């Protein structure tokens, strides 16, 4: 269980995290989505006591992180898989972490086995591929058999097998009743992994809802040479219409059949009429459209 209350982090005059209040519950995978620079990593660092909040609190199991005795037994986290001394062996890295929290040394071999790095135990951490580094980071998170797990972009650098493995791992950790909090910018990945989603943009909470709730808004894509006329008609029927291009509309609020009929009655030719699959990607883009930190303005490259 992780509880954030009015959590805020300010760097100079920039608000990295802006009054975030939410709870991350056990027994589920909670996805943490947001564009780059939205404040996901800063939020995670504040939960782990690495960054000090400007105001507000972050509690893990009801306590601020620094008050947890032997915290690796309560919270396991993977923030940056590359943040390991490159000259230290895989085994040495995990052994130091184990010692720091009174975790028996045999756990090192166990977690290495679990993440599939047993054969690489003697290798220097700096000699690992990015995918193997991610596995090492996950091994470190699992070391203390904690009830709360946090992963920042865990599938970065993993091959398709690795991605599937992480997905199954997250699901099984949640099924064991643990709190699993995973950040990602890969909506497709979250759609497959998460039960619940927290979406932030520019440090502010945009959505905090079960995955299913975010998927329902279905839209219809309409292409027509008379898109303008059609938009007026559809709007008059109470539909919500977004004109994406000269002859392209995205319509919500009416089924495909109704839109087709309306166009026919008005004698407007259609070149395309297609319901868009309910995807997280789409929901996400609509949610975060106003809060993308570094937008590339179209045509700016010309």
């Amino acid at each position, binding site marked *: 269980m992780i509880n954030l209350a009015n959590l805020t982090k300010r760097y100079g005059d920039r608000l990295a995290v802006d009054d975030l209040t939410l709870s991350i519950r056990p027994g589920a995978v909670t996805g943490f989505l947001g564009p780059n620079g939205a404040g996901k990593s800063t939020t995670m660092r504040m939960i782990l006591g690495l960054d000090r909040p400007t105001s507000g609190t972050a509690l893990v199991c009801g306590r601020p992180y620094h008050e947890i005795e032997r915290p690796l037994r309560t919270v396991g986290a993977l923030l940056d898989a590359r943040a390991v001394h490159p000259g230290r062996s895989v085994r040495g890295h995990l*052994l130091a972490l184990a010692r720091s929290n009174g975790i028996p040394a045999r756990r090192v071999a166990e977690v290495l086995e679990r993440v599939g790095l047993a054969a690489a135990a003697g290798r220097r951490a700096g000699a690992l591929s990015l995918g193997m580094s991610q596995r090492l980071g996950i091994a470190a998170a699992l070391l203390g058999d904690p009830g709360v797990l946090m992963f920042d972009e865990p599938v970065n650098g993993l091959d398709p097998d690795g991605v599937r493995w992480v997905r199954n791992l997250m699901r099984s950790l949640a099924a064991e009743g643990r709190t699993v909090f995973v950040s990602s910018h890969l909506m497709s990945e979250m759609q497959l992994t998460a039960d619940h989603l927290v979406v932030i943009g520019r440090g502010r909470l945009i959505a905090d809802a079960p995955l299913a709730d975010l998927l329902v808004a279905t839209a219809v894509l309409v292409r027509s040479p008379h898109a303008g006329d059609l938009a007026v008609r559809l709007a008059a029927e109470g539909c919500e219409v977004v004109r994406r291009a000269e002859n392209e509309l995205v319509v919500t609020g009416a089924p495909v059949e109704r839109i087709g009929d309306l166009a026919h009655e008005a004698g407007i030719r259609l070149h395309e009429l297609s319901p868009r699959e309910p995807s997280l990607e789409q929901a996400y883009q609509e949610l975060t459209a106003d809060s993308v930190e570094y937008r590339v303005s179209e045509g700016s490259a010309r």
Partner: protein
Amino acid sequence: MSGAIAAEWVKARTVRSTWTCLLAGAVLTVLGAVTLGGGRATELVREGVTGARLPATEGVVSAMAFAQFALVALAMLTVTSEYSSGSIRGTLQAVPVRGRVLAAKALVVAPVLFAAGVVSGALAAVANHALLAMPVFGGFGTLEPGRTAGDLLRLGVFCALAGVLTVGVGAAVRSAAGTLSVVFMLMMGLPLLLMMTGSQAAVELATRLPLFAGLAFMGSESNLTGGPIPYPAWQGLAWLVAWAALALAAGHAVLRRRDA
């Protein structure tokens, strides 16, 4: 706390740089001591002195004034490598009470550097004694167990305190280059510069900096000082301890306040 210390010990022994620094420290101490001891003996022989007595630890303290930087590098890396690699975040996740991390590092560095100082000094003394016993060098070598043991112990204490000072500076500065610059200025550059100015106030200040405080504590008759250090050995130790404590306090203040 014991967990944090155990972790720091594992971290120190599982990187090659620790062992490289220890080896370099020993080699530099031996070479330095042999050069200085041999030089002193040659000087005496040339002056036609007979029956002089040179202790086995002749030149060892002065050699350590330079060789210490290999050991300082070891102490520095226990802190700065955490920042350069980013592993400080993992360390603070495991031990979120920041003072405890710093204390654990100091408590691992201090005994390791104490041992390094004693062992390096002992090796240097053995090599020096073998050299000074040779007729070419006047056969001036003497080995008084009590005095030698005392010299080596003080050498170890000096290295341990230099290491603790470096850990503190490292936590305050965070970068390797910055840490080494600050420690070098405190342990070598600044005292020598101040000494060279010749002004009374500057010399007074210089003798309170860690280099001369250490030399005073170790009872060096080094020509580095250009004159006797104007206070007894125990005050040298007190100044050294004060500098190490000040550095640790600075490191702790930064570690506590700044985001990792």
